[in-house]
């Protein structure tokens, strides 16, 4: 009976998580288009629903009912595999992410995370790396020049940002003496890590921009010069999978930034429910992502590699050394 309840709880949590992640792109797409519009002194979507709120629903229906076209010369198997490969890792990663300590529902203490892994950080960095395969396969399998160029750029940029990203979080791990995200958040109950680790935060956030393939590092899809990059040939529901994946990674990087550097659900000054604090911080970083998108031009991919290897990597190494000397 105990086991059945425990398994049932996990199934319910996973179900809620999946539903939330699948539905999250809708408000985020709306938000992104609104922010884009207002930064360019336009209004964004206005006609479907109140201030265009139902526009993503209409777009979703359109994507579901559109023809799912596969080019004749495409590699059929990889072409079908790639969107799934791009979408699954961001979903898997959320298993290891805590959204708070615990709440009591009907007398039961329910933890706000699916699992408290002791190597959560390692798990996240490892699994999210697989997402890149979806992008590379998608670009390669569509047998189109734009797709291949997009996939090629992803290959080129991937190593240069994943290494600084991995090094940037080591400082946080040293401070918390643990790789569990719960312990990392608990260690920040007094002072947020961003105070001790400003350089680590900077490196992590820039690498996170590249990880989420957002402007200024959205080289793989670069709609200005590559059509739509790796998903040029995708349409209908497969394209929607790539979109969901992109937004899930964006949310993931925001959540990780908040957990690792901004104290997770620990609040300051104003006493709010911890989960609310968490959501406010995550929403802020999602906004920053969108704000960046409509402010900066795109880097060339050799520039991204130069930033990755010549700036971010030395900075993150120096950060590790200084953290080690001062705190350990």
């Amino acid at each position: 009976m105990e086991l059945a309840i425990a398994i049932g709880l996990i199934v319910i949590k996973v179900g809620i998580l999946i539903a939330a992640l699948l539905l999250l792109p809708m408000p985020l797409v709306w938000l992104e288009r609104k922010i884009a519009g207002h930064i360019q002194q336009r209004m964004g979507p206005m006609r479907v629903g109140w201030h265009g709120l139902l526009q993503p629903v209409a777009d979703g229906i359109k994507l579901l009912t559109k023809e799912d076209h596969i080019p004749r010369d495409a590699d059929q198997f990889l072409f079908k595999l790639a969107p799934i490969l791009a979408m699954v890792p961001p979903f898997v990663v959320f298993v290891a992410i805590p959204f708070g300590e615990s709440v009591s529902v009907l007398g039961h203490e329910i933890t706000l995370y699916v699992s408290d892994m002791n190597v959560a950080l390692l798990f996240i960095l490892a699994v999210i790396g697989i997402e890149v395969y979806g992008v590379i396969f998608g670009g390669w399998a569509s047998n189109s020049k734009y797709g291949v160029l997009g996939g090629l750029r992803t290959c080129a940029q991937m190593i240069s940002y994943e290494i600084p990203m991995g090094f940037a979080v080591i400082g946080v791990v040293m401070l918390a003496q643990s790789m569990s995200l719960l312990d990392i958040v608990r260690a920040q109950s007094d002072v947020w890590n961003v105070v001790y680790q400003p350089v680590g935060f900077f490196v992590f956030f820039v690498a996170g921009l590249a990880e989420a393939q957002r402007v200024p590092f959205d080289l793989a899809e670069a709609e200005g010069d590559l059509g739509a990059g790796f998903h040029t040939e995708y349409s209908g529901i497969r394209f929607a999978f790539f979109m969901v994946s992109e937004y899930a990674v964006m949310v993931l990087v925001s959540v990780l930034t908040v957990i690792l550097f901004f104290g997770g659900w620990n609040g300051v000054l104003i006493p709010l429910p911890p989960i609310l604090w968490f959501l406010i911080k995550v929403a802020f970083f999602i906004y920053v992502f969108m704000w960046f998108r409509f402010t900066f031009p795109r880097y060339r991919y050799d520039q991204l590699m130069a930033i990755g290897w010549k700036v971010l990597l030395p900075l993150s190494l120096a950060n590790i050394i200084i953290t080690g000397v001062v705190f350990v």
Partner: protein
Amino acid sequence: MTKVADKRNTWIGWAFFSDIGDALMLTFSYMISRPVTEQYPDTEKWLPYSRYRGHHFLKRNDEGEINCVACELCAKICPCDCITVVPYEDENGARHPKVFDIDTARCLFCGLCEDACPADAIALGQQYEFSSFNSSDLVVGRDDLLTKPGKAETGGGVVRARLDTADGVRVETAQDEGYNWWRNIRRK
């Protein structure tokens, strides 16, 4: 320009990304400023100036007779040959048009017919919503031209409007004075 260059030359500005900060503040200030979009068919509509050249209209004199004397000067001067005038003589011996067709599909709204008219009979008015799915609807006859709206009295503003699609598509307005659309445009 000079401000940015100065900051870039000092290493402290360079180290703390002052130019990136400037860019972010600029886009943020744009984000909280008012949009310049004119929500045309839904809630807003632009009123033409009095000099605006919209759909043609024919004028009547004080007795209610058509001003036009069917001299066909407008048809002669029309650069795209879109005016057809067929004259007739009424019982008093005055010349008037029997047929006065304007093919608005060909018309380029130059206003030369208005300038050429010796009898102050034809002018270009304020109406600009006369699109059609059928090109034969765009050939407008004498009687329709007599009922078209004339020149705008004021104009140049954006007023509240309401889109009505129950019977055809119409955009209704109530006010005569609107706000100046340029008030939301940023100038350096």
